[in-house]
């Protein structure tokens, strides 16, 4: 797995800088899912999501501009084919609001739905996005 050095630097800086917008961002090219007040930004660690290979996602999760505190789960499925992944991703917390999701695999090209489930004291919040993976 390639980890871009600038990303490592960025992720080390984030926890120490306390500004109003203290939302961790995983870096360039990240996609954003917004369901106020929750924001998830994520990017494949290697830059692209491959087909038929394991990949890792790095994600920043915030609530109202602050790092999210709670439980994060990730799953994915192909709505058109009615099946999910053959693997159960593992979510590891890297720091406040920062997560690493390993064991992902899209075993076919096509439309995949990626779902982040956030649990905190206010309940469960589901943020999902669909994209054509090729």
């Amino acid at each position, binding site marked *: 797995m390639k980890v871009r050095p600038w990303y490592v630097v960025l992720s080390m800086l984030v926890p120490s800088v306390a500004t109003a917008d203290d939302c961790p961002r995983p870096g360039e090219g990240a996609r954003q899912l917004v369901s106020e007040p929750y924001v998830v930004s994520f*990017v494949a660690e290697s830059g*692209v999501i491959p087909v038929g290979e394991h990949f890792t996602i790095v994600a920043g999760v915030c609530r109202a501009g602050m790092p999210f505190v709670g439980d994060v789960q990730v799953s994915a499925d192909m709505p058109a084919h009615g099946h999910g992944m053959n693997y159960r991703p593992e979510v590891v917390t890297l720091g406040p609001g920062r997560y690493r999701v390993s*064991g992902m695999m899209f075993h*076919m090209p096509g439309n995949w739905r990626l779902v982040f489930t956030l649990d905190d004291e206010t309940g469960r919040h589901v943020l999902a996005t669909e994209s054509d*993976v090729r």
Partner: protein
Amino acid sequence: MTPSPRRIVSIFAWLVGTVLAIVAGASSATSLVEFTESERYFIESHGPWPPPVVVDPGNRFSGDPRAVELGERLFSDVRLAAVEGMACEFCHRRDRAFTDGLVVGVGRQVLARNTPTLFNLAYNRWFGWDGAADSLWAQSIRPIIAQAEMNADAGIVRRLFETDPIYRTALSGMLEIPVGELGDDAVLALAGKLLAAFQETLVTPRTPFDEFRDALLSADMARAARYPLAAQRGLKLFTGEGQCSLCHFGPSFTNGEFANIGISHMIPNDGVDRGRLAGMRKLKESVFNLTGPFNDDVTRANAVGTRQLRFRHTAFGEFRVPGLRGVAATAPYMHNGSLATLEEVVRHYSELDMDRLHVHGGQILRPLHLSDEQIGDLVAFLESLGATPPGNTSQSGQVIEKQQYDGHAEQ
């Protein structure tokens, strides 16, 4: 997600190709089938071939020429078996693209499954029809100790390594600990890793399909047009309407995962073959899986699939999607060898029994109801995935010498 640069190149190549095809005029237009953008994507995904050489981080002997040589020797060494005249090669015959041509393998007993080819294994994630092994070396241990196959044990392997001067001398230069001091499992892992180092070198050669793909991508329409029209039409079905490429994806024509295509998985007089479901169980129980002590990748990054495997009821009756390179040379087909020819395979897909597939929502597999001509086209395409007609193994650059065993059951 992020559009890959590869993809942009492919669209560009397609545009150039279209323009060139138009410029080239009617003569070349009649010898080239038109492909949609999506079909082109899949065609591109089925290459390049051969892919870059990969080294297995879980096998410290992977790519080591000494291990390749020892592994090759072991592969045909009858002393590795506690059965007269048996060796890996007894079932995986060099003159049959490393299969046996039988419906199901025959060792000391008749086995439940068809003997697969050993080509292109370096690119696999799972091994065996049920993926019960997560590495080529672990898969190579199974037949040595299986009672129905070679029926040997660690003692037999250790003795062979200690007494045969060629193994002894070579191994003493490769190991920190003398073979005689290795534990039983470690000796078996060693044998598996040597065998794997050899098998990783078995790669099918370039094929007419690869010539076509590369020509198409580089918009060399004259070269592309040399690919027979029937194969082109078959390729269009394969990557288009047939949706075959969704599972038979990528350069090896497999996404490396498992599926159920409605083949019966009853074992005659012996219940049922649970397929991937049993494979997942065996994998978890095996001391040789990648989460265990014999994985040479200290980071255990290569064990992610084993660690994160998800239990699914659908795994019952699923089998690994086989790669299709050189498929014309490896009849009969399917996990139980139940289909004798490629034509039978295509007819199976053409007349699928949907009730056997528990599907929900959009279906990938559905009866295609192909005409005889279309069936012929698909077969022509599948045959074009081998360099030379079936039965002729001069194609395989790595195949060394032919060795026959007497009394091998033909069927």
